[in-house]
C-alpha cells in the first residue's frame, strides 16, 4: 500500500508525458516518420516484438553482451589481482591501463571489425573492452580493502597463501568486484549495440540501423524500447546476484 502511494507521482508523470506526446502529434500534424505518436508505437510493439526476425536479432545481441561481459569479468579479475599483488606489474601495466581508460573505445570498433569481421566476434570484443575497466579497477580496490586486522588474524593462525586468497582476499574484495560487474553489464550492452551500429549484419543494433534506413520510425522506437528492457533485465539480474552474495555487508550500497 505504501509502495503504491510512493510510486504514484511517478506513475502520474509518466501517463501525463505520454498524453502530451500523443496530443502534440495530433495537434501539430508532425509526420509519423519523424515522431510517431505513442498509440502507433504501441500498435506495432507486439507485432515487432514477437516477430521471428526480431527475436533472432535480440538473441544475437544478448549473446554478444553476455559473452563480452564474461570475458571482461574474467580478464578484469585476473589482471586486477595481478596488479593488486605485484607493485612491479602495477607499474608495468600502468600506461596500458590509463590508455585503455581514456581512449574513446568506440573509435576502436572499425579496427575490431577489420580484424574480426562483421560477425559476432568483433562485437563480443567491443563489449568486453568497454566493460573490462570497472571490473579490473574494482578488483584492485577490493583486494586492497582487506583490513589489516583481518590479515593479522590469518597471519597469527599461520594460514597458507591459498587459504588467505580463498577465505580472506576473495570475500573482502567481493563487494567491490560485484559493484564493478554491475557497471560492466550495462557497459557491455552499450558496447555490443554500438558495435552493431557501426558494422554488422545482425543484432538489434544492426536492425535499428536497417529500420531507420527504411524510415520505419515507429518500429525503431520499439527496438529502442526492447534494448532498454534488455539492459534493465540484465542490470536487475546482476543487482539481485550481488544482493544474494554479499547480504552480510551492511554497507553494500556504499561500496560503489
Amino acid at each position, binding site marked *: 500500500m505504501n509502495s503504491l502511494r510512493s510510486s504514484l507521482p511517478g506513475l502520474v508523470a509518466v501517463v501525463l508525458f505520454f498524453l502530451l506526446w500523443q496530443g502534440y502529434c495530433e495537434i501539430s500534424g508532425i509526420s509519423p516518420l519523424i515522431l510517431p505518436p505513442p498509440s502507433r508505437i504501441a500498435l506495432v510493439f507486439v507485432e515487432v516484438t514477437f516477430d521471428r526476425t526480431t527475436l533472432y536479432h535480440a538473441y544475437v545481441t544478448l549473446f554478444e553482451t553476455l559473452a563480452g561481459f564474461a570475458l571482461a569479468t574474467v580478464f578484469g579479475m585476473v589482471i586486477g589481482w595481478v596488479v593488486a599483488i605485484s607493485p612491479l606489474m602495477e607499474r608495468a601495466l600502468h600506461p596500458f591501463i590509463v590508455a585503455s581508460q581514456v581512449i574513446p573505445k568506440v573509435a576502436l570498433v572499425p579496427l575490431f571489425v577489420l580484424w574480426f569481421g562483421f560477425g559476432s566476434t568483433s562485437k563480443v570484443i567491443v563489449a568486453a573492452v568497454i566493460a573490462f575497466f570497472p571490473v579490473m579497477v574494482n578488483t584492485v580496490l577490493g583486494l586492497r580493502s582487506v583490513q589489516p586486522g583481518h590479515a*593479522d*588474524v590469518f597471519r*597469527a593462525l599461520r594460514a597458507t597463501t591459498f587459504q588467505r586468497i580463498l*577465505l580472506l582476499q576473495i570475500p573482502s574484495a567481493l563487494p567491490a568486484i560485484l559493484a564493478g560487474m554491475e557497471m560492466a553489464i550495462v557497459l557491455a550492452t552499450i558496447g555490443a549495440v554500438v558495435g552493431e551500429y557501426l558494422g554488422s549484419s545482425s543484432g538489434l543494433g544492426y536492425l535499428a540501423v536497417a529500420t531507420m534506413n527504411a524510415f520505419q520510425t515507429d518500429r525503431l522506437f520499439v527496438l529502442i524500447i526492447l534494448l532498454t528492457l534488455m539492459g534493465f533485465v540484465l542490470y536487475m539480474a546482476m543487482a539481485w546476484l550481488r544482493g544474494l552474495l554479499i547480504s552480510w*555487508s*551492511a554497507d553494500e550500497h556504499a561500496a560503489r
Partner: protein
Amino acid sequence: MTVSISCKAVGKTYPSRSGAVAALTPVDLEVKAGEFLVIIGPSGCGKTTLLRMIGGLLSPSTGQLSLTPGEDGRTTTGFVFQQANLLPWLTVEENVALPLRLKNVKRDGRRAVAEELCVRVGLGQFVKSLPRELSGGMQQRASIARALADNPSLLLMDEPFGALDALTRSRMNGELERLWLTSGATVVLVTHSISEAIILADRVVVMSARPGRIMSIAEVNFPRPRRKDIENTLEFQQIAASLRAQLDQ
C-alpha cells in the same frame, strides 16, 4: 604441552625520515612454560610490539627470540587483538571455528567446538548471528573464543578486555583464569589496568615509554583460583601502589 619463550636483546626499530625510531630498545625476557605473564605500561612503550614479535606478526630488528614447544613438540598460538577483527561475512560460530577450518578440521567437528566455546563466553544464543549484529563487547568475546578454538599452547592477548564494561571485564578475567588453569597454556597478556594485571598475573612486567623498555618485573603470589576480594587485601594494595609509582615515573 606448554610453550616457553626466550627473548635475548630483542628490539625493534622502524625506519623514518629522521632516522631509525626505536619502538622497543633491546629487552631480555624469559617466559616460563605454563606461566601467566602480564605486561603493563603506558601507550608507546612497545608492549604491543613485543607481543606481536612473540606471535610472529613482526620480526625483531635485533636480538634473538625463540619459542620452545612443550613435550608434544607443537606450538599452537591463539592471538586476541585489541579489536575483535571478526570476518563480517561469517557467522559468529564460523568465526570462532576459523582456526580449525584453517587446519582442515571437518565441519561437524569444528561446529561442536565452536558452539561449546560460544556458550562459555556467553554467546550461546548468537552462534548464527553476523558480527555486525553484536555489540562491541560481544564481538570481543567471540574473538576470545576464536583464539581458544584450537586449544592453544600459547595465548597472546593484546588488551583483550579494553572494550568491555567493568562488570563483564571482571567476569571475563575470572573465566580466563579458569580456562588457563584447565588448559595449562602459557599466557602473555598486555593491559593498561593495574588491578587486572595483579588479579591475573604470576608476574607483572612493567614497561616505560620513549624509549620502550622493561623497567621491572613483579611477582604476584596470591593462591589460585583467585577470588575477586583479594583486591581488598593489604598485599594487593601494596603491589598496586608500587606498580603505579613505577608507571608514574
